[in-house]
């Protein structure tokens, strides 16, 4: 058994090499896709606005708005990459081109193929976050105060958040049909980013209690809050055990939904 498990890992590795090769080939479109939204956002709201005498104040008075959105925008970068890197191609491969067949026929249980997609989505999510970070750090006209209080916390958050992003990409990619991709952006991607505690810390929602509780269903909330705790600890943020547990739960639930749907789509 252990030998076959080892064999499965080799197969998985082969699939990851393939996905990374494709990523390398498409790096420019990948980076552009990842960067555009956060870049324009920080440009308008943290560069243009302060210069034309407008300003948001989404947190404590002594903290710039740029500082508040940095962790959130990195989280959006991760989620968006997870969706773009896994959900879009997977939806097409399962629904239209059937290209996934060659990997479905690889000598592993089909569940492992889905798992590989989740892991690669997570890996690309980390890359997405890394691509976004320097932009949101450097573009703002107002000072950005980022300091990492605890490296282990940052690593844990980034790992769990990237797995959540990969799991979300897998779940969406296996459930959404190619013709529904536009709809998916309108109904899933846009709402989770606007209601993902990206542009405001979760604690500050307390004047609107129903919203504060409703957004807890959104996995992006825990990614934003987790990165906030790791990168801008002086801002209000959730307690680490809460967001870590929530991210783990989100990964498991979304991953389970995604793997199940993947098996259903590839075996009849």
């Amino acid at each position, binding site marked *: 058994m252990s030998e*076959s498990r080892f*064999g*499965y890992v*080799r*197969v998985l*590795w*082969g*699939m990851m*090499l*393939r996905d990374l*090769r*494709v990523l390398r*080939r*498409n790096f420019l479109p990948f980076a552009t896709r990842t960067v555009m939204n956060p870049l324009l956002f920080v440009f308008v709201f943290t560069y243009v606005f302060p210069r034309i005498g407008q300003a948001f104040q989404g947190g404590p008075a002594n903290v710039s708005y740029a500082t508040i959105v940095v962790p959130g925008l990195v989280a959006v970068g991760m989620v968006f990459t997870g969706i773009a890197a896994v959900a879009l*191609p997977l939806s097409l491969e399962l629904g239209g*081109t*059937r*290209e*996934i*067949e*060659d*990997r*479905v*026929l*690889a*000598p*592993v*249980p*089909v569940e492992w193929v889905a798992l590989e997609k989740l892991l690669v989505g997570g890996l690309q999510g980390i890359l997405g976050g890394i691509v976004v970070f320097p932009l949101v750090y450097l573009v703002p006209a107002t000072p950005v105060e980022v300091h990492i209080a605890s490296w282990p916390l940052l690593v844990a958050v980034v790992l769990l958040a990237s797995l959540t992003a990969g799991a979300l990409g897998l779940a969406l990619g296996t459930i959404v049909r190619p013709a529904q991709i536009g709809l998916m952006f309108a109904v899933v991607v846009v709402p989770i980013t606007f209601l993902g505690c990206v542009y405001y810390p979760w604690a500050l929602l307390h004047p609107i209690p129903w919203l504060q509780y409703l957004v807890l269903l959104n996995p992006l909330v825990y990614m934003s809050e987790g990165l906030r705790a790791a990168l801008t600890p002086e801002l209000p943020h959730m307690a680490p055990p809460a967001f870590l547990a929530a991210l783990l739960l989100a990964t498991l639930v979304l991953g389970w939904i995604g793997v199940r749907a993947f098996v259903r789509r*590839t*075996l*009849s």
Partner: protein
Amino acid sequence: MASAPPLLISTLTKRYPGPPPVEALRGIDLEVRPGEIFALLGPNGAGKTTTVGIATTRVRPSSGTVRVGGLDALREPAAVKRLIGVVTQYNTLDRSCTVGENLYYHCRYFGLGGREARARTGELLSQFRLSERATAMAVTLSGGLAQRVQIARAIAHRPSILFLDEPTAGLDPQSRLALWEMVAGLRSQGITVLLTTHYMEEADRLSDRVAIIDHGQVLVTGTPAELKRGLGAETVVEVQADQADETLRSRVAALPTVREATLTAGGLRVLARSRDGLLPGLVEAALPYGLRDVAVHEPTLETVFIQLTGRDLRE
């Protein structure tokens, strides 16, 4: 394990719940022997693709068993997938990759290391005359070329049985001939092949043995020659006569050497043990019934199919 047949299918059934529910397979039994080219011949919807789907672990049967090289395809799909190569009806090449990468990563999926995978890729590229296309993106290939890459990819991990599902459907005549040559080449390398087709000529030319399948059941299995001999006729005559009726039919059936005569849409089909002295009598009998044409040919697998089902393969 070495003595286990490459493919053994027993009492396989598959019911798709629908709606409407479809009985795709109603108890299929097959045995494919080592080194042979085995054809599943039948019209569209006969259950060929479902059978291949189950044997290649992608479709779950309702009942019955499939053993590939002695392994249970239902219980040990991952191990079975090592033993099989699959070319499906549609192009499943990885469109984000080049031709060479399609082969290389396939090898990696089957556990080969980087160096081995590169070597195997080079081997396959030259064997299938694809070396010049190695860096072409898979998405740019024509149908015939894509099929060639798919076959190269399917045998890259040296499977013990190769499944070709309708390999020439949608190919132009030239590519079809090239593919037939390629399959014949596989046989000379000792690769066992199961192919499905609804072209009787394809089954006849390529296969060592044929199973004719219709409505989810195997009607008959044997070598093409055996199946044709089973008709008990050396000659088939297609008679075009607008007013052919039962009277003509029974008159023709009584002619010497005629084994059987059946009414068809535009006339009669006559199976005869020999053509000696057959035509004059036949023409004389059919003249008053608006005889327009008489075509004589040897029995084909199509004739066998018609005899078994009363229908044309293309219907």
